[in-house]
């Protein structure tokens, strides 16, 4: 058992448990906190795959940004309604059947596909290569992403602004 093997199984258990908690807990606020745990666990998986830059991005944007936005949205709507939002679920059995069928389909495909089990030698510094790719072959996409973020920001401001 190498450190990577132990780390993978620990992170996998944490990720699956917190994911289940996100979709099952009745308290919406707790669900967001479990989502933060799941997002951090995903970041650790990026770390296990030797992508420390993605780990930092995941922590900053997802666990930092997304969770903060969702918490703010919940607090705003709770303040407006003046009571705690209970989160109920419906069609639990049907949802479980569909989700299990999708998983079975993916797993069945995975078992047949010829997949690599040994990873190649890591690049000298993946972060440097990612940075070069972002300003090299993917420069236009990178710029478009900036336009998208500005547009999304303006759109969010427009939708959420006051009545005046």
């Amino acid at each position, binding site marked *: 058992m*190498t450190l*990577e*093997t132990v780390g*993978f199984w620990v992170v*996998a258990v944490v990720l*699956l448990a917190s*994911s*289940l908690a*996100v*979709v099952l807990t009745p308290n919406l606020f707790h*669900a*967001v906190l479990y*989502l933060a745990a799941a997002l951090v666990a995903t970041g650790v*998986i990026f770390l296990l*795959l*030797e*992508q420390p830059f*993605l780990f930092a991005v*995941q922590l900053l*944007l997802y666990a930092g*940004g*997304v969770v903060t*936005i*969702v918490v703010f*949205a919940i607090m705003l*709507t709770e303040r*407006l309604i003046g009571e705690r*939002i209970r*989160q*109920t*679920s*419906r*069609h639990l059995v049907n*949802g*479980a059947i*569909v*989700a*299990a069928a999708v*998983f079975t389909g*993916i*797993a069945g495909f*995975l078992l047949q596909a010829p*997949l*690599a*089990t*040994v*990873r*190649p030698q890591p690049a000298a510094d*993946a972060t440097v290569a*990612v940075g070069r*790719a972002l300003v090299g072959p*993917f420069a236009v996409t990178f710029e478009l*992403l900036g336009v*998208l*973020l500005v547009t*999304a*920001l303006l759109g*969010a401001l427009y*939708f*959420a602004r006051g009545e005046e």
Partner: protein
Amino acid sequence: MIGLPSYLVLAALVFSIGLFGVLTRRNAVGILLGIELMLNAVNINLVAFARFNGDLIGVVFTLFTISITVAEVAVGLAIVIAIFRVRRTVEADRLDLLRG
């Protein structure tokens, strides 16, 4: 060593859990959280394939999907707040203004 199939199966499990959440939650914010889980599973897949194929494009693509997801969450929650102002509810079943 943990092989590529382990990462892919883990991602498939997270994706299915997220799909379950999207299908069963009544609250619009809860549905958004399920979508987050599904997108996360996709990111795990992209990074795992990138690592095991020795190809960097998957990592770059993950950066793009993460940024786009953040934009999606911001707009989605803004819409939720706007709907909440008008209808005083965020339950997806009761948001039927467009039903014919």
